[in-house]
């Protein structure tokens, strides 16, 4: 028996190129459906867990999927805005805590998320370097943003213009980094958090400029009377909020009319949640209330259907590969006819020769399965991070 194994092993070692191709093909075809399933399961678990951790979301009427993806993952199109008054009205009901989000602007490709400090408490986000934002114009960075931009507390990031062709648009705002959040392996790592009011300053709803009633601003004044000063285009507007100019920043109009893209709603109990959902689910309401977990479940159903097709395809390819591998083994038997005859002539029994052949097949298959298992374990540990790193290159 040992001799038969030795002969089989020597054969595989001698034809190492052919063996390697066989092992690689079978490994990949075993690994692909299994690895894909592991990745999708991990991802959907994460999607569901973030959705489950977000009880309700209120937004303007429109696509619930767009609203949820924008609110939970800071991706997809920007939903239609709501008035901030919606947040205060919701708070006034006493039925839930309302956490506003304004996810519209970006800085070097990263989402700028305007919100309140309640968001950090709600998501249990912790500042590991620097401190929490305190002043208008400050921001805290998600860990991946800080790593990618190589910035930390005391550095600055600048908001990007929404369109390079918008020459009359608002000035980019230079924001001071107050702190960096601990790595959470969620979408929060990929965001730049600012105070809601700072996001309104980015939009131009609030700004700072020279005091037009003072003599040194006279060059920026077009007309002045007892009750009104009209500025000309040369009035200096600030693009960074500093200790020196912070007092000059102000907002135009009532904050209640200012925009937010969504409100994360955190009711204390199921009864309050049900009452709230009932209030918003009227035909004439211009807002919608969604349960992110429901929206994500619907999406995952679709994804799982797509995944089934992918897996089915992989299984078919696998069967084809196994058929090819069988053909390779059968053809190799024909090619090895003289070798087999020699084995018989030197006294090898039929069983011993068969053992050599079967051993070769078993070694190839076992090696492939073990390698596929190893790859699956690696995928479980590092798959998502590796793909993410690869895609960011």
């Amino acid at each position, binding site marked *: 028996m040992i001799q038969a194994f030795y002969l089989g092993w020597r054969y595989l070692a001698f034809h190492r190129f052919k063996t390697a191709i066989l092992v690689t093909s079978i490994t990949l075809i075993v690994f692909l459906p299994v690895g894909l399933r592991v990745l999708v399961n991990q*991802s959907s678990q994460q999607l569901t867990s973030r959705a489950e951790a977000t009880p309700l979301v209120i937004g303007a009427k429109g696509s619930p999927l767009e609203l949820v993806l924008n609110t939970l993952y800071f991706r997809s199109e920007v939903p239609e805005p709501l008035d901030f008054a919606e947040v205060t009205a919701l708070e006034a009901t006493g039925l839930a805590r309302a956490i506003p989000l304004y996810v519209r602007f970006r800085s070097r490709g990263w989402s700028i998320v305007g919100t309140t400090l309640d968001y950090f408490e709600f998501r249990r986000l912790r500042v590991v370097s620097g401190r929490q934002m305190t*002043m208008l114009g400050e921001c805290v960075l998600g860990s991946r943003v800080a790593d990618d931009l190589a910035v930390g507390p005391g550095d600055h990031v600048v908001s990007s213009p929404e369109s390079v062709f918008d020459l009359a648009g608002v000035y980019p705002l230079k924001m001071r980094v107050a702190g960096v959040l601990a790595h959470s392996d969620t979408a929060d790592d990929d965001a730049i958090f600012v105070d809601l009011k700072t996001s309104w300053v980015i939009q131009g709803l609030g700004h700072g400029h020279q005091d037009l009633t003072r003599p040194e601003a006279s060059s920026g004044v077009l007309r002045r009377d007892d009750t009104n000063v009209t500025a000309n285009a040369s009035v200096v507007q600030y693009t960074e909020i500093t200790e020196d100019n912070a007092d000059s920043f102000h907002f135009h109009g009532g904050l209640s009319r200012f925009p937010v893209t969504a409100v994360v709603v955190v009711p204390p109990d199921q009864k309050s949640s049900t009452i709230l959902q009932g209030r918003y689910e009227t035909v004439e309401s211009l807002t919608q209330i969604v349960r992110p977990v429901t929206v994500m479940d619907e999406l995952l159903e679709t994804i799982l259907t797509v995944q089934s097709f992918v897996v089915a395809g992989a299984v078919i390819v696998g069967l084809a590969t196994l058929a090819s591998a069988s053909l390779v083994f059968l053809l190799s038997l024909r090619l090895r006819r003289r070798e087999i005859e020699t084995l018989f002539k030197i006294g090898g029994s039929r069983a011993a020769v068969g053992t050599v052949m079967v051993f070769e097949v078993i070694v190839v298959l076992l090696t492939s399965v073990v390698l596929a298992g190893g790859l699956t374990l690696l995928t479980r540990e590092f798959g998502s991070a590796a793909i993410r790193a690869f895609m960011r290159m």
Partner: protein
Amino acid sequence: MSRSRWVVSLVVSSWLLLGGCASPDDPERPGPGEGNDGLTVYAVNYPLAYFGERIGGDGVEVVLPVPAGEDPAFWSPAPEQVEAFQHADLIVLNGAGYAKWVERVTLPTSKLVDTTGGVRDRLIGIESTVTHTHGPEGDHSHGETAFTTWLDPTLAVDQAWSIAFELSTRWPASVEGWQERIAEIEQDLSVLDASLQQVFSERRDEPLLGSHPVYQYLARRYALNLESVHFEPHEFPDDAAWAELEASLARHPARWMLWEGEPMAETRTRLEELGVTSVVFDPCGNRPDEGDLLSVMQSNVENVRRAFGSN
């Protein structure tokens, strides 16, 4: 299944592979209210701190971080002081545009209490604010509401009640007995209101001057014929200010000027030459060196009574 849904699914499937994976929650993340033994309430001015201290009793520590001698209405906190506000259990605001710095810092909205939020219809707009225009937004101004609301004791009662409501709703066990304490505050403010009514009723139609535009609520509550100038207690007014005052006196012949603090001796003398007696009526925006809100207000009443009596 619609075609667009398939497309979204495919896009999201790809994204799922890119960024969806996560580790479980970090056990080191802090929870709400962690590290606090008792309740800590931050206030933006002394009257609110005073009400908070009396309503909260021993279960509540009330902090007013404004340094002595500074006007809380125009003070601005440093970032580390804002952090202290962020860690408070409750942040009591005056509203009515008081303490503009609140608009320029990041505070947790769920901890904010606007004590004049329920009485907005009783706030006084400032008509003489200069507006400015630039860009397409039209006219706008940077200050529009009178903010020394507590000088009207009936408004002060409402402010005290809003603090009592928040404390008793959020932490009923920590402020046990609050009903008696708010009743005492109401009673004290009612006595103060009666004293002010009585002292001002003696000279109701007499023209009065305010050294600063901070007495709007006092004037409305007691129907005072009061106009304001912009004199600082610790600065001798320049010639233009005196000329403006004299012009004002020509049409509004006031014999008394209410001051937020003791004016300079030269200013007092010059005013007396113009026939105007200086009367200190301290709004008590910051914590007094001695006494408390009620004792300061009582001494304001005495100052007015003495001044009115001597003329």
